[in-house]
C-alpha cells in the first residue's frame, strides 16, 4: 500500500536512468494531478511494477505495465521515480 514520505526508499532513481530489461517498482510520480491520474488510469501507479522494454540514451522510452506497453516521453519518464527490485 501507500507509503509515507518518511518511509520512501532512499535509492530512488528517475525512470529514464533504468536500463532496458530491468523490472522496477514505482515509488513516486512527480507530476500535476491531471497527468498523475492519466498515468494511474494506464496502470502506472505508486507501488506498481513496470519493466523497461526500450531505453536508448535519448528519445522516448517504452515500458511494460501490466499486460500493455506504454510509450513515455523522456521528460515524463524523468519525473517517475523507481527503485530496483
Amino acid at each position, binding site marked *: 500500500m501507500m507509503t509515507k514520505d518518511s518511509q520512501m526508499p532512499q535509492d530512488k532513481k528517475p525512470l529514464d536512468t533504468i536500463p532496458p530489461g530491468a523490472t522496477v517498482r514505482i515509488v513516486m510520480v512527480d507530476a500535476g494531478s491531471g497527468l498523475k491520474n492519466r498515468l494511474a488510469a494506464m496502470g502506472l501507479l505508486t507501488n506498481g511494477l513496470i519493466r523497461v522494454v526500450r531505453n536508448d540514451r535519448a528519445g522516448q522510452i517504452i515500458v511494460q505495465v501490466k499486460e500493455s506497453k506504454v*510509450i513515455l516521453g523522456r521528460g515524463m519518464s524523468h519525473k517517475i521515480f523507481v527503485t530496483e527490485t
Partner: protein
Amino acid sequence: MSLPDADKKILVALAGNPNSGKTTVFNALTGTRHHVANYPGVTVEKKEGRFHYDGQVIDVVDLPGTYSLTAFSTEELVARHFVFDEHPDVVVDVLDASNLERNLYLATQLMEMQAPLVLAFNMSDVAQSRGLEFDLKQLEILLGAKIVPMVASKRQGIDELQKAIIETAQQQQKQPLNVHYGHEIEEELAKIIQCLEGHAQKIHRKYPLRWVALKLLEADTEVQEWIEDDALKSQVAESRAHLYEIFGDNADIIVADRRYGFISGACQETIKDTVQVRHDISDAVDRVLTNRYLGLPIFAILMFVVFYLTFTVGAIPMTWLEWFFGWLGEAVTTIWPEGILLPVRSLIVDGVIGGVGGVVIFLPNILLLFLGIAFLEDTGYMARAAFVMDRIMHKIGLHGKSFIPMLIGFGCSVPAIMATRILENRRNRLATMLVIPLMSCGARIAIYALFVAAFFPEHLRGPMMWLIYFIGILLAIVCVQLLRKTLLKGETVPFVMELPPYRMPTFKGLVIHMWDRGWMYLKKAGTVILMLSIILWALISYPKAPADELVGLDEHQQQSAQLQYSISGRIGRAIEPVLKPIGFDWKIGTALIGASVAKEVFVSQLSIIYSLGDSEANIEALEEHLQEDYSALQGFCVMLFCLITAPCIATVAVTRRESGAWRWAILQYVGLTVMAYVITLVVYQVGRLIAG
C-alpha cells in the same frame, strides 16, 4: 426502471479503452450502416448505428475510447456526460480480455456511475492462447455485471452480446456493487454524503450521491463547480487534507490505487494463469521495428509502399474517372440543343462537371491512402512508427505521428489534413494541419515542371525541384515553431501513449474505415467545392467579350481574348501593381486566380492566355512564350509563390471541417498568402540587385 414497451427503442452506449477492439464490436453489432457526426460542441467523433433483435430496435452509440472517466480530457467528459444525460438503457464496456486488470479500471468507474453494465470480454481467444482461464460466474458476482466472452473480429459471441443487452435493458436495475475504498476513505465519503444529503444541494438527481462524493474527494474539476455550499466545501477540503496526512498522497491517487486493489483482488480469485512465458513474439518484433538503425529504413519502405499504391495503382481508376467526366462533358455538349441556353451548358459542362470532376478524380487516391493508413494503424504498426519518428519530430516541436500527415501532404493536402485525426493533441493537430500546404502536393508538380523546364538548363532542373521542395519543408518547420510559440502555445503535453498489441486487421474494419473517409471527401466535393467551382467558373467566363472584338481571331485567340475580358482577367490586371514588386504581370495574376480552385489549373490558364488552348501538346510552345516574357529569376519567383501561397479551395474546405472553425482555415489562407508575398518580394528584389 420499468419494463420497456415492446416498441420502445433500446439505447446502448459502447464504452471501452483504446485498443480494446471497441470499433470492431461496434461494426459487428451494427453492420456497415452507421452515421458519423461530432458530439455537440466538441470535435470528438460520434458514431451511431442500429441493429434489430427479436423485433426490437437497438440504437448503439460509440463513446470515445478512454482509460478512465475523469474531467481531465474532453473525450472522458463526453463519455461521462453521455451516460448521465442520455440515460442509455445499457452500457456495454468492451474489454481486452488479455489485459483485464487495466481494462477493468474503466469498468469500476462505470459501476460507480450506476450504469446498467454489460462487460464484453473481447479477444478472449488471445487471452486463452496466453493461458488465461476465467471463472466467469464468480467474476460476474464480484463485478455485479453480466459478462459475455467474445471474439468480435471473428463474430464470435455477437449473438450472446445482443441477448445480454436485451436482458439487461429489461431487467429491474439492481443496486450496483461499490468498490470498498478502505475504512479511512469510506469514513470521509460518508461524511461528505451526509453533507450532500443535509444541504439540499442543487445537484440533479441523475447523479448518484456516492459518485458525487467520490468525485469531490478526487477533486474532480467539473463536479467541484456544482458545489456552492461552504460547509460542504470545507468538509471536502478537510477530508482531503486528512487523507493526505494518512497516506502522503492526494485522495484521487489513493482512490485510483484502491480501484486497482479491488480489481486485482477480483482477478486473483477468478483468473488462473496457466502459462508463464508471454510477450516474446511481440517483444522480438518490437525490437526490430523500433530499432535505432532499422526503425527508420523500415518505416521509409512501408511508407513508400503506401505511396506507391496510392499514386500508381490509384492512377488507373483515376484515368477512368477522368475519361468518364470528359465523356460526360462531351455528351452534355453534344445532346444540348443547338443555340439554346448556351451559358447554362457552359455552367454545367465547365463549371459543375469540370469543377467537381477535378475533385472527384482524386477519390481513388484518397481511398487507397486511407486503406494503407488503416492497415498500418489496425496492425499496431503506426504507434511504432510514431516512436521511431519522434526523435526527429520532437526537435521541431511536433509529435512523431505528425510525420505521417506531412508525408501524405506531398501527395495531396486534402487527405493529409484528414489524416491529422491520428494526432490526439489538439494543438499539435492544428499546427500540423496549418503547415501541411507547404508540403508540395502533386498538383503543384505541373507548375514546377513547366517553369523548371522553361528557365533552367538540364543539369540544374533536378536540384531546382529539390530546392523548391526543401524550401517548403524548411518553411513548415519554421512555421510550426512560430505557431507553437504564439497561437498554439502551451506546454508540450507530457507524452504517454499505449503501444497497442500487434493484431491482424479485419477486412470489414479496413473497408469501413476507408469508406468513412472517402464519403466525407465526396460530400465535401458535392457541397462547398461545387459552390466555389461555380463561382470561379463565373469569374473566368463573364462578362462575355463583345462579338466585334473577337472578329478575325482563331479559336485559341478567342479564348485568350475572352479570358482577358472576364472578371478574372480584369482582376489579374487590377492587381498587377501589387504583383509588380514580386516580378509578376497580369498574365500570371490571372492564372493565379484560376489556380485557387486547383493548383494545376495554373498551367492551363497560362496556356489559354497565350492563345495556345489547354492541350498538353502545346507545352513546348508555352515554354518558349514564357522564356520571351520572363527572366529565370521571375520564373523561380513564380514557383516559389505557388509553393507557399494560398492552398486550393478543397484544402480550405477540409481545413475548416477538420479544425471545426473558419478562423483556422482563414488564418491558413491569409497567413500563407502573406508569407508567399513577403518571401517572393525579398527574393525578387534581392535577386535583381545581385543580377544588377
